[in-house]
């Protein structure tokens, strides 16, 4: 347990001292790394726990960025601008969630993408408010310290939120929805309320992160706020790391950002193609992501991290629901047990 605490604390402390010890480059790199962690971890609340793919997760981020920028240009204080951005994102999620959660599976995914596109076009066309395609600029800030620490706090908070969800009643309900919504419904889970709560939770921190991003960059345009890359990067990172685990989004965000920084920023092109190749590879050969691969599972166990935050999110449910261990859970390799998605088995009846 002490080792586990170290594994969590050391990177945070290292990141926290970077502004004093590292260069501007390091600070900026870590800023975007933390942003990736925020977006990926919050995206995974929907995709990983609830099983609803949100192809327009960047809409929350973009809304936060625009609301922050607009509040500041109209003379609002920074703190109010940040909070307004988060509130706008949460309100947007609550409102959009009402009609959208009548849909499931592919239809839900398609409409979230549609809504992202609508937001992008609105941002480009409402020139009087948003500045159109030329974008929105605010006065630059002197120090990068506050934005950096805020983003770091947000990243820690996002992972903490997922860790809490993984252990909470809410998380159990969401896993139930993911595995079989009808069964969850008849088991007494208020699925429509839970889905909306999870959606709002997944919108809050990206809204804040959008505000912090705007504070740091002082400029936003429709493409950088609502463009496809903001929305697709979290999908790719979560899939790579392991969707539906607490550590997975962090692993995915960190590894992909690192690879991108070390290899592709030097190359300068074909970055999207690299994203695409990673996505295809993971989708076919590693649908459980890195966290559920054997090597990562071993490393994770060796670090002494609690396994229910790693590859075994949701396994607790099996123990309480079934008196005997399920055939897949007694598999010799515990790492792959999580792949069998214990709650309801594969679809209907296949697991029983």
């Amino acid at each position, binding site marked *: 347990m002490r080792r586990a605490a170290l594994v969590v604390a050391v990177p945070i402390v290292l990141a926290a001292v970077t502004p004093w010890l590292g260069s501007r480059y390091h600070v900026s790199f870590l800023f975007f790394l933390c942003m990736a962690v925020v977006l990926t971890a919050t995206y995974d609340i929907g995709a990983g726990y609830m099983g609803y793919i949100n192809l327009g997760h960047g809409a929350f981020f973009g809304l936060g960025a625009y609301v922050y920028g607009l509040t500041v240009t109209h003379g609002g204080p920074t703190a109010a601008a940040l909070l307004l951005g988060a509130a706008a994102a949460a309100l947007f999620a609550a409102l959009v969630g009402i009609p959208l959660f009548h849909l499931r599976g592919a239809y839900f995914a398609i409409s979230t993408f549609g809504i992202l596109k609508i937001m992008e076009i609105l941002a480009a066309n409402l020139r009087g408010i948003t500045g159109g395609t030329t974008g929105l600029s605010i006065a630059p800030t002197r120090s990068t310290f506050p934005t950096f620490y805020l983003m770091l706090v947000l990243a820690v908070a996002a992972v903490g939120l997922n860790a809490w969800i993984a252990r909470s009643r809410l998380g159990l309900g969401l896993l139930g929805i993911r595995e079989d919504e009808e069964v969850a419904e008849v088991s007494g889970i208020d699925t429509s309320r839970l889905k909306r709560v999870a959606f709002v939770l997944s919108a809050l921190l990206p809204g804040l992160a959008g505000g912090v991003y705007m504070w740091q960059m002082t400029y936003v345009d429709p493409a950088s706020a609502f463009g496809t890359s903001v929305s697709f990067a979290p999908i790719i990172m979560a899939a790579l790391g392991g969707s539906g685990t607490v550590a997975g989004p962090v692993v995915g965000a960190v590894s992909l950002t690192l690879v991108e920084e070390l290899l592709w920023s030097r190359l300068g092109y074909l970055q999207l193609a690299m994203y*695409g190749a990673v996505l295809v590879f993971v*989708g*076919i050969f590693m649908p459980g992501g890195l966290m559920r691969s054997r090597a990562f599972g071993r490393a994770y166990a060796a670090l002494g991290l609690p396994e229910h935050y790693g590859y075994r999110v949701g396994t607790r449910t099996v123990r309480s629901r079934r008196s005997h261990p399920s055939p897949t859970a007694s598999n010799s390799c515990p790492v792959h047990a999580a792949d069998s998605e214990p709650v309801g088995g*594969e679809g209907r009846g296949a697991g029983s």
Partner: protein
Amino acid sequence: MSAFLQILVGAVLQGALYTLGAFGLSLSFGVLKILNLSHGDFLMLGGFAGYFAFLYGGLNPFAAAVLVAVLVFGAGVGYYRALLARLPSGSFRRLLVSSVMVTLGTALAIEDLTSFLWGGGSTGIPYRMTSLVWGQTVFPLLRLVLLFATLALTLMLHVFLTRTFLGRAIVASTINREGALVVGIDVRTVAVVTFGLGVALAASAGVFYATLYTIEPFMGLALTLKYLAVIVVGGIGNLPGAFLGGFVIAASEAFTAHYAGPHWSPMVAFIILVLALLLRPQGLLGRE
């Protein structure tokens, strides 16, 4: 009045083109249950192939469309065999997740590679025909011929789907996959043919698209979404419905562009998409 009519006639052409491009998406979603987010990129690739065939091979768009369709059919079969047939398909949700990952990844890779090789910027096939002049009215001959070509292709597709065994097997598989299996349809072959046919149709539509409008490497994903709107409005796997959906979307876009300004027209399809999913997920012509 004349503007109204002109917009309406233009919308028929645009709608027919939408139908041709979109119907493959409807087939692959209906038969394979795969949400193919890379569908629009095959249209883009078809457009570029037609462009190069015209520029270096001197092929007119109609011959190029046939050639491109054959080539892309092969590419689609290869793509399906190599990647999509291997998707983990334990549950519907898992198939959805992995198909989104793989087809989105392919879309990003295709778009970025095309942009890298092509060098960015948009282009079109500079193929022109003389216009027919009848008194005061000018008929753009190219548009008319393209309209007839698109309609002919759609009609051929309709005949294929309703009159031939393979076509009927495809339709049967969209309606009830298990039922199709029970009556002895080789669903696997149907799946391969469906996917190849779908992207081949999109690619040939791409050649026509490039002749009428301009194409650029990053158009694919937005186009896929627009095509989803077309097939959702019409109903999955329903060709007459898709035709109606294509026309509805093309007409609303054209009228929005005319009355509210062209910068609002890209939004129409997305609004219609979301509304159609919420109000009539079975499509305009579909039954409950």
